[in-house]
């Protein structure tokens, strides 16, 4: 059995990175919004789903016209990121801002709103797809340029071009975000709002604008992740965002919520763990416990972290204020 495990290991690690980068990008959206608003934005998993659906549609309609698969993907990424980012802004503007303006102190109110928004977005996409194509189980069209495959390390890893593209794009986005948050004026403003909203507003920062931008950035990252997810895993429905969203949130908590490098690290770690258990659980238990339990593993990790190290891997302990 050990031989079997070792033989699979390189492939497992590779696939774990593919999954991990998707989680990392989605986790960033959770962590940034949590940073500025202290809100778990449940609707973010639907922003991710919208990116995936846009990716499918772009491939469906433009694949016959655009010969180059990479150009096609670039278009899908741009459009997916833009539409997802825009949706995130709209959600903030019409669902969360009215609550903020009223100044409710009850923490449940924004949380319940977020769940409601998430449900609305799921069915809105289903409605649009229903009216458009009369179906909502979508399949990503395959494009030859991106489907090519190579064997690495003497056949230990079987990898497709699109997996490399996924990792490459993710790394670029993550580097770009790090630069944006640490080196630009907008980044300083976001960090200031996250640290203390009312003081930041005294320093000439318009919190509403910064919050809106934060949703835009997090939303477009989620949308890009969605397009890449659709490319990699191909089957997309309006309800496809729920589980990856929940896991990306787990990743954000794992890294330390509100912490940007933490979300990236958390995503990668969670991707590895999930893929590891998903592959090895059936082998280790002689098929008695199948791959389905990988989701259970993710939640157990979430609970364990929250109990043992609630501040996450890279987070700092915050005292609860009276």
């Amino acid at each position: 059995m050990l031989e079997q495990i070792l033989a699979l290991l390189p492939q497992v690690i590779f696939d774990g990175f593919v999954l991990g980068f998707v989680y990392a990008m989605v986790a960033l959206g959770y962590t940034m919004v949590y940073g500025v608003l202290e809100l778990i934005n449940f609707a973010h998993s639907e922003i991710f789903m919208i990116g995936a659906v846009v990716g499918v549609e772009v491939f469906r309609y433009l694949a016959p016209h655009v010969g180059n698969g990479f150009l096609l993907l670039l278009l899908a990424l741009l459009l997916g990121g833009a539409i997802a980012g825009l949706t995130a802004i709209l959600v903030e503007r019409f669902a969360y801002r009215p609550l903020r303006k009223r100044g409710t102190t009850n923490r449940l109110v924004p949380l319940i709103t977020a769940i409601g928004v998430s449900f609305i977005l799921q069915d809105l996409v289903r409605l649009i797809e229903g009216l458009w194509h009369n179906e909502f189980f979508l399949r990503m069209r395959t494009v030859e340029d991106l489907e090519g495959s190579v064997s690495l390390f003497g056949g230990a890893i079987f990898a497709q071009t699109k997996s490399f593209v996924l990792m490459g794009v993710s790394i670029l986005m993550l580097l770009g975000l790090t630069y944006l948050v640490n080196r630009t004026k907008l980044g300083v403003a976001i960090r200031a709002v996250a640290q203390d909203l009312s003081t930041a507003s005294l320093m000439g920062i318009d919190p509403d604008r910064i919050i809106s931008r934060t949703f835009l950035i997090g939303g477009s990252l989620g949308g890009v992740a969605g397009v890449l997810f659709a490319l990699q895993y191909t089957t997309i429905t309006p309800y496809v965002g729920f589980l990856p969203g929940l896991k990306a949130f787990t990743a954000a908590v794992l890294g330390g919520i509100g912490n940007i490098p933490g979300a990236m690290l958390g995503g990668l770690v969670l991707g590895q763990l999930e893929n590891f258990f998903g592959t090895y659980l059936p082998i280790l238990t002689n098929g008695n416990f199948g791959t389905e339990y990988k989701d259970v593993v993710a939640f157990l990790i979430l609970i364990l972290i929250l109990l043992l190290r609630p501040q996450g891997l890279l987070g700092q302990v915050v005292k609860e204020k009276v």
Partner: protein
Amino acid sequence: MSALSLLLSLAYLGLAFLAPGALANLFGLGALAAAAFLRLSPNLRTLNLALLTLAFTVGLVRSGNTLGLIGLVGILVALTTLPRVPTWIRAALGLAILLISVPLAGFANTFVFELGIQIGIYAAMALGLNVVVGMAGLLDLGYAAFFAVGAYTWAIFGSQQAKNFMAGNFPLPGEYIYPFMLIAIATTALTGLLIGLPALRLRGDYLAIVTLGLGEVVRILANNLDHPINFTNGPQGITPIQRPPIDWFRELMAAMGVRLDQTTDYQLFFYLLVLLMIGLVVLVNVNLANSRFGRAWVAIREDEIAARSMGIPLLPTKLLAFMTGAAFSGVMGVIFAAQRTFVSPESFTLLASITILGMVILGGMGSIPGAILGAAALTILNLDVLKTFSEFVRTSLPQIPSQVDPAKYERLVFGLILVLMMIFRPEGLIPEKRHKAEMEEA
């Protein structure tokens, strides 16, 4: 004003006799609105409500149109909320609606029974979740998990299923359902304890996400525990599940002069059983709300740190709320399994949890009549209004694609209800006093 309202009620009574149907019932709803919202003397209002009760009952019996049921629910709400109606009138009219009108309507249209039972099951669960979310302020997004545990507790032992892993004479006979309700209270409260012990140490928003995850875990377990040992029979679900024997009930009803046939006997039985359960649950709820625990829960909801400094032990108090809510859900799970004679993981999804949450939010967090109203409104919306609308779209608007079937869009409707309520009326339709003050304080 008074003459107008009385005239409307009488006109509806006439319509219900002569031309029963959807239009007449719509008119009746208008008359009910007039009776509830116009400025009337208490006596006249009471008279109006009594007339309307009679009229809706007649309308339901003669046409079976379920809009009439909405009217009866509306009267119940009016009876619980309107000021200066004598208590004995409230009680008499309320009991008449629940024990006479609805069964009569059920004999005319068995769908009314089905609706009544579903409303009852959901109302009892909404009341349970109300303890957790409304009183203690703990957002539980995996509440359907407890419902599942309760339902499977009876489903496994009340069917052939238990033979797969233990020796014995299964299915257990139907009488065992009554002790199993108690067992389900124990198993679900224990599940609540197991989930709550880690989850309730966390701050509010983490609790929400952990319960969300655990709700999923229970569903995954129900789906996959058909191997290596077959506990749950996986996605196919378990059927047939034993129902309690009701010979004594048939005889009792026959002695009272009520003739029951093969379908209505169990429906009436389960309807009355569910009513009884709601009565019990309300009683427990009211008593808890005014008890030491109830006050401690509210204190924790309002300000955890302040509550702790007043000497309230946080974890045990929260655990108690969590387990109480779980136990309510577990009992209803047993009834649900027996009434359907079938359970499958499909019934216990996130959507189910959010539906129950939506009921509590719509009615008003912490409010007992609110939770019942919320359950009635969302169940009727889901099982009746959306389905009717679907039927209408299918027959009258064939150019709309078949995938756009309004009955499939409950998520959209529930999502809209949650968001709109949170933005415009976070205290709910029938607010609880303390909660209202809190939501308005800002």
